[in-house]
């Protein structure tokens, strides 16, 4: 889909909000469910280098590192399609397993991720997402935070480029900040 079409669809969607069924609009959404849905969308709007997709595999791996409160919510995404692949959820016991992943989520409660974590990922084409505070916040591609009841995200371009990923302009527009 060309980017302008994304923008058009996005715009229509925002306009369409007023017509949403009240149940969705009014009700609070679970943090983990929403974060999982965000991860899915990040995957939709990311282009991986051909090397990451070279395996002709059928799965797009959504990986979770660290304490895993997101688990069951993420599991609900398993099997959904992203770019001709089905989502598979993996829980990593060690950061070193991350290079096989397409999207990697590090939970903010995990204060003990070893420093070698980022070394391992330095070159790997993995979209890193976290809600952990500094220093992870600036080191990973996307940072999630809850702000006044809304889930917002920031993008750090440096790790995105290092991982040789391309994020769609629509995603960058929706980000609260792009560093």
């Amino acid at each position, binding site marked *: 889909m060309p980017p302008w079409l994304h923008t058009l669809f*996005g715009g229509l*969607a*925002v306009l*369409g*909000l007023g017509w*949403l069924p009240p149940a*969705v609009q009014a*009700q*609070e*959404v*679970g*943090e*983990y*469910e*929403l974060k*999982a*849905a*965000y991860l899915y*969308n990040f995957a*939709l709007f990311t282009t991986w280098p051909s*090397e990451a997709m*070279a*395996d*002709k*595999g*059928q*799965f797009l791996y959504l990986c979770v590192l660290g*304490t*895993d*409160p997101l*688990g069951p*919510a*993420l*599991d*609900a995404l*398993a*099997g*959904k399609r992203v770019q001709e692949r089905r989502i*598979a959820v993996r*829980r990593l*016991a*060690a*950061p*070193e397993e991350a290079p096989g992943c397409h999207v990697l989520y590090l939970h*903010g*409660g*995990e*204060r*003990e*991720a*070893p*420093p*070698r974590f980022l*070394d*391992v990922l330095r070159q*790997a084409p993995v979209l890193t997402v976290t809600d952990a505070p500094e220093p992870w916040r600036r080191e990973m591609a996307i940072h999630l935070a*809850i702000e006044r009841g*809304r*889930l917002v995200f920031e993008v750090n371009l440096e790790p995105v480029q290092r991982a040789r990923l391309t994020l769609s302009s*629509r995603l960058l527009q929706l980000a609260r900040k792009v560093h």
Partner: protein
Amino acid sequence: MVSWAEGMTMHRRLFLACRRGLLPGIAALLFPHAAAADAEAMAALTADRLAELPFEQLLTLQVSSASHYPQKVSEAPSAAVVVTAEDIRTFGHRSLADVLRSMPGLHVSHDRSWSYLGVRGFSRPGDYNTRVLLLVDGYRVNDNIYNQAYVGSEFLIDMELIERVEFIPGPGASAYGDNAFFGVINVITQSAAAEPGVAVTAEAGSHDAYRGGLRYAGEFGNGASVLLSASHAQSHGRDWYYPEFGARARGLDHERNLKLFARLDYLGWTMQAGYMRRPKGNPTAPYGTLFGDDRMETVDTHAFATLGYRRHLSEHTEISGSLYYGHYGYDGAYPYAGTLNVDRSRGRRAGGELRLLSGAFAGHTLMAGIEYQRDLRQDQKNYDLSPHLVYLDERQQDWKFGLYLQDEILLREDLRLNAGLRYDHAGRAGGDLHPRLALIYHPHPGNSLKLIYGSAYRAPNAYELYYGSDVTGAEQKGNPGLRPETIRTYEAVLERTFAAGWHGTVSLYHYRVADLITQIEDPLDGRLVFRNDGRIHATGMEVAAEKRWSSGVRLKASLGYQEAKDRANHEFLVNSPRELVKLALSAPLGTPSWRAGLEAQYTGERKTLAASTGGYTLANLVLSGRAVLPGLDLTLGIYNLLDRKYADPADRINVQDTIRQDGRTLRLKMDYWF
């Protein structure tokens, strides 16, 4: 890294039920009327439904932030080791024994019937892996007759179902009770979401070994997920020449196994059931049976079912419980001139546990639990078929009960004290209290110093107490007067992460075992009998290092040195290698989908009952390809690449002093996802 992963397990358990929407779901289950109105609205907001909405719309939704657990908890503070599904694939591990063999300080020996795990130099001939607790998703695999941890091909579930294997060395008795004497093996199965769909596995290997399997993992919109698996394997086995008999045992090392497993997860409930049956030949002619007789066979059968439940009582408190039923059957056919001797046992047990985990008090993470097991059947029978002569017909029942409390106290931001106390009472052996204490200094991520004191006891099992007979011709007799054996351990573990990406662990330990239940030959009548005999002291050190390069090359290496000695005669123990050296190297092969894994393991010289058996190096080379064609994974493994001839120390039941093991073998494995 390791303590970190270990804590994660705990957290995964903690948070399993933590998902928003789950509690109302449970409430709906318990109070259908009250919650019915909410059910539809809640269902609309699961992650997969949210994912259908445009991203722009998600950004506008009001989020209710979830509760965050305060602190990482290490359930068993120790030098734990983790092997993941990825490692199992990369190094082509065929059984749990292969996985354990790759871990620091562990060695595995095999008597052509079962595999035995040696922990830090302890693996006594005649013992059936009774001093290690084996758990599959919390279910105790150790049966209630031999208390055996089944780690070879006789393990309960397929390797493809394993998400990871943790080994926690040292007595875990303060949290786990019986059998957690030298360590706990924790096998965690994959979630249905890990690899959804239908998959088939087909394997072919040396000595006419074939294996086929089918599995399904799927999730349903209502929050339920299912994992189903079935596999069958058979192997002709190789022919063995035994100089002690001056002849070759042809076609006697055969085996077959059938494994079934099912799991259902639904709203905090987990149901599991499994079945395993393995008939195995034995070419070594144990117990003075006729050499070369193809009637020699042992059949192991396991069946189990568990039901678990977990819920959050409040933001910081979780309660979990489980019920289980386990069946173990053993049927041995031992051919003698003129008769076939039948050796049978049947074990049945049922039990439950309840556990409370709470971080409600600032600076404390409390865990309290209660466990009860009823041994419904502990039957052992031994008889000659014809003429019919019963040597043994022992039917026992027993029960055990455990109560434990553990607190992890945050003394300072970087200093934690983990204190645990457990009281166990076994119907026959009586009660005992065992404490554990660990001080964990954790200045930076990946760097820690742990000082650990632990203690445990192990009650004699039904086999040690009752197996045997006074009838003339019987080779073994029971000893109902056995007392529990005890262990005290002292350990220091230093973990460091270095700038260049190296991660290292050093651990020093000293074990003291008293009243060891050990099999000896009674000088009065020449029969084998278990006695509380002597004290053993073991002192040792393990050094492990690992590094992953950005090029994708990974290295894990470990070195273990230990001296385990009998205090009575200051001699080294039998089947106790002083040196264990392990190396695992893997690298991508040009393309992202292919990877090569090389393992090399050196096991030092071991004393045998009569002499000794030399050290040996095993090397395995495995090439694994993921998605080499759409949906197709391939693994080619060459085991014992150098075709080294090596042997494991034999038991007293064997004429041989050592039992030779497999030379070079090949295996080709294929997994295909539809």
